[in-house]
Structures are given as structure tokens and as C-alpha cells.
């Protein structure tokens, strides 16, 4: 079922302790900052978070990690120049890390949304990231077995939604949004704009509304991803 909610607080209110939460975005592009802030405020803890990175600077996911709310990160690139909160928790042994090559991460998320039981991928074969995993030679090439990665909740950002929940994205901010929407049991989307049903060309819909559960309109952040806090606006 699809709901249009008025505030990011309402949107995330159902997230329970111990949940696995996918968070869209690659760098700042496509990061649902306002939903992450609301997740911080709502108090849910013991979370497993799936994101390409493990937080940057002193915002968003980095703060969730600093506050000790993330039990485990599943990501491809935790260590960055400004990932100090993750670095500290990891070095202290206070956060678990499952490191996955970025393409395997994306494909595992897709597999969950697509109802597959797992797949063999050449990526990572013969490396330490295949340690302990099933391997198989297929057509003379080594492959690693990877399992689907699903989530209780996905927090993603899109450009525009219609009233059926169909989504379009903007440029490289699309990244993990479409596959996370399909892989999560409950998908919460922040959008810049909500348009009437029929206003999106059916040929150009990227995420059909079937994958979307909650939509909240958030304005106030510029596309160049400044640090201005956004505000949720009451939808029409």
C-alpha cells in the first residue's frame, strides 16, 4: 500500500530496532539526507545499514554511526578521507563490517528484488573477499556464489513521484534507488516534487509505484548538495 505522508518523521516512524535499512545514494548524489536525519531522531537502534559507503563528515549516516545506532555496515567503500566516525567505531571493534565489491553489492540487491536465490559472479574470485564463499569454475572462469540482499526498509531519494508512486530520478542520483526500492519490504522515498497521476510518461518511469510504500516531499536542499537542512512540506 502506498501512503503520502506529510513529514519525514512520520515516514520513518515504523522503523524498528534491529531492522536492516538500505540507504540510497553514491556520495551526496541521491542521498536521502532528510530521511536519514529523521531516522537519527526516531531513535531506532541496532540497525544493519546497506549503503555504498559508511558515512562522510559529520552528517547523515556518519552521525547514525557516531551515535552507536548501527550494529553492522554492508558496503563497498567504508574508508574515505572523512569517514572518521566509522573509522573510530571499526577500530574500536564496535561496528561489524561486511565488505562487498560494488557491483556484487548492486547485483545482490537486485537479486533480492527479483526473487532469485543467489548467483555466480566472476567478480572477487581468487581474492580475499571470496574467502569462505562457494566457488565454481563455469566455462573455464572462476566464479563466486553471492546471495540476495534484502532489507526491512529502504530510504531513497528521487526527483519526482506521481500519485501512483511511479518515480523518476535525476542524472547520477539514480544510482542505488531503483534496486533498493525493489529489494526492501517497505520503501520510503523523498522526492522534490509530486505530480498528478498521468503526468509522467509511462515510457520514462524508472521505478514503478509497485515498489514504493511511503512518499514524502522534501524541499530546501539545492541540487549541488549544499548542507542546508531541508524541510518536508505538506503534500497537496
Amino acid at each position, binding site marked *: 500500500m502506498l501512503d503520502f505522508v506529510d513529514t519525514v518523521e512520520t515516514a520513518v*516512524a515504523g522503523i524498528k530496532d534491529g531492522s536492516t535499512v538500505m540507504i540510497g545514494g553514491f556520495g551526496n548524489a541521491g542521498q536521502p539526507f532528510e530521511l536519514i536525519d529523521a531516522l537519527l531522531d526516531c531513535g531506532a537502534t541496532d540497525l544493519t545499514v546497506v549503503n555504498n559507503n559508511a558515512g562522510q563528515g559529520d552528517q547523515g549516516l556518519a552521525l547514525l554511526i557516531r551515535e552507536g545506532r548501527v550494529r553492522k555496515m554492508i558496503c563497498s567503500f567504508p574508508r574515505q578521507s572523512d569517514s572518521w566516525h566509522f573509522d573510530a567505531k571499526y577500530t574500536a571493534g564496535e561496528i561489524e563490517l561486511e565488505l562487498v565489491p560494488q557491483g556484487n553489492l548492486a547485483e545482490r540487491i*537486485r537479486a533480492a*528484488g*527479483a526473487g532469485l536465490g543467489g548467483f555466480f559472479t566472476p567478480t572477487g574470485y581468487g581474492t580475499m573477499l571470496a574467502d569462505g564463499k562457494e566457488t565454481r569454475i563455469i566455462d573455464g572462469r572462476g566464479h563466486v556464489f553471492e546471495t540476495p540482499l534484502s532489507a526491512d526498509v529502504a530510504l531513497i531519494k528521487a526527483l519526482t513521484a506521481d500519485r501512483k508512486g511511479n518515480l523518476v530520478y535525476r542524472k547520477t542520483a539514480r544510482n542505488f534507488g531503483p534496486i533498493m526500492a*525493489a529489494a526492501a519490504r517497505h520503501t520510503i522515498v523523498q522526492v522534490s516534487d509530486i505530480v498528478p*497521476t498521468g503526468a509522467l510518461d*509511462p515510457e520514462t518511469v524508472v521505478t514503478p*509505484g509497485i515498489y514504493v510504500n511511503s512518499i514524502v516531499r522534501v524541499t530546501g536542499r539545492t541540487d549541488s548538495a549544499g548542507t542546508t537542512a531541508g524541510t518536508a512540506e505538506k503534500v497537496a
Partner: protein
Amino acid sequence: MSFQSNEKSLTTSDIKRPDIKTADAPLGRNDLARLVAADIAPGSFVNLGIGQPTLVSNYLTEEQDITLHTENGMLGMGPEAHGEDIDGDLINAGKIPVTELPGASYFHHADSFAMMRGGHLDICVLGAFQVSATGDLANWHTGAPGAIPAVGGAMDLATGARDVFVMMTLLTREGASKIVETCTYPLTGVGCVTRVYTDKAVFFTGPQGVTVRETFGCTLEELQDLVPVPLTAAVGP
């Protein structure tokens, strides 16, 4: 607020029918289609199989706001197209020209079947040769010697939707029950059917066996005489 589970579950209409009902007469195809339509929860995403299940679309109301999926790559399918509305690029899985409703979307075949296999469709309605007590489905192949097999999307539909409803006559022309202990026709899917709508009764199938929600023109006892698996009255949750 609690989030919807991805698991197979009974829809709201089950909650409304704690007692078994008995109608005066067997249901015709259209009445059966009307009953199925009324049982689909508002806002559902539904795939209607080719043949009898297609009739269900005639009885869906605007208030229900049901979104129809067709596995050849579309959500938001409208009614069959006629006359000038016919467009060769806009067909359903039965290759019949259809129309597009506002809010529709198109996607390629792998994305379409990912949607189905991933459990995102609430309900799929299919015809059947046989359904077993535990919900095994046989609806694609008679297994007759020399018959050319053709499966299409039948196995994907049976496996993918959260709830698989079957619509069929209870008995074959020869009078044999299509609800059976074990399917003798080649299987389409294992343990996938949750509900069977027939002219004589509505059944729930699953790991616990077969229960009866309501009968049409017969008592539960009379029904039991026709069906070779133990039947019990369904109770509310």
C-alpha cells in the same frame, strides 16, 4: 504504523467471513468472476491469467483502484482495445490489444518477471487442470503423449505472486474432482495455490490441507462426496 509483510497472507475479506456461507445454486463463470473481484483488497497489484481469470477485470470497481500487471512488460493495463484504439505495440500476455491507464509504466521482460518472481504482485489469478490439497498447481501441460509442451509464463506466475488464486469448475466433464490429493498432470508449481474458486465452493489450500470458505448449491457434506481430500470448514483468523 507497521509495515506490510512480503509473505503470503490472507486478504481482508477472509476476516469478514468467519462462518461458512451456503448459496442456493452453483455459481456461473461471471458470478464467480464477480466474487473473485470483490475479494481483491483495494490498492492491490494483480495479474489475471489468460482465459477465465480475465473475466475478473470486468468486475473490478474504480474504488478498488486495482493495478493490473501484464507479464509482457506493463503495469496499469486498461480494458481490451477496440476499433481505432487498437495499437499493435500495446498487447497483453494473451496477445490481445489492450489500453493504457493513467499512471501506467512499461519495462522489459526481465524487469517484468523480476517484479513477479520477487513477490511484488499481491495476487495472480489462474486457471487450472488440478490443484492438490497442499496447493500444488497443474495448469500447463496435459502430459499426453505427442503433445507439444508450451509453458509461457505459467510457472513464473504460479511461483511469484504472494497469493495465487485458481478459478475453475470443480469437476471435469467426466465428473472427476480437480481438487486432488496429488496432481497427476505435470506440475506448474509446488505449494503455490492459496485459494481455489469453483462453481461449487471456495477453498483454501496450503500446508494444513483444504478448508472450505463457502459453498454454492451444496452442503459441505455433499461437497465432501465430490472431493477426494478431507474438507473442513474454514474458521476466521
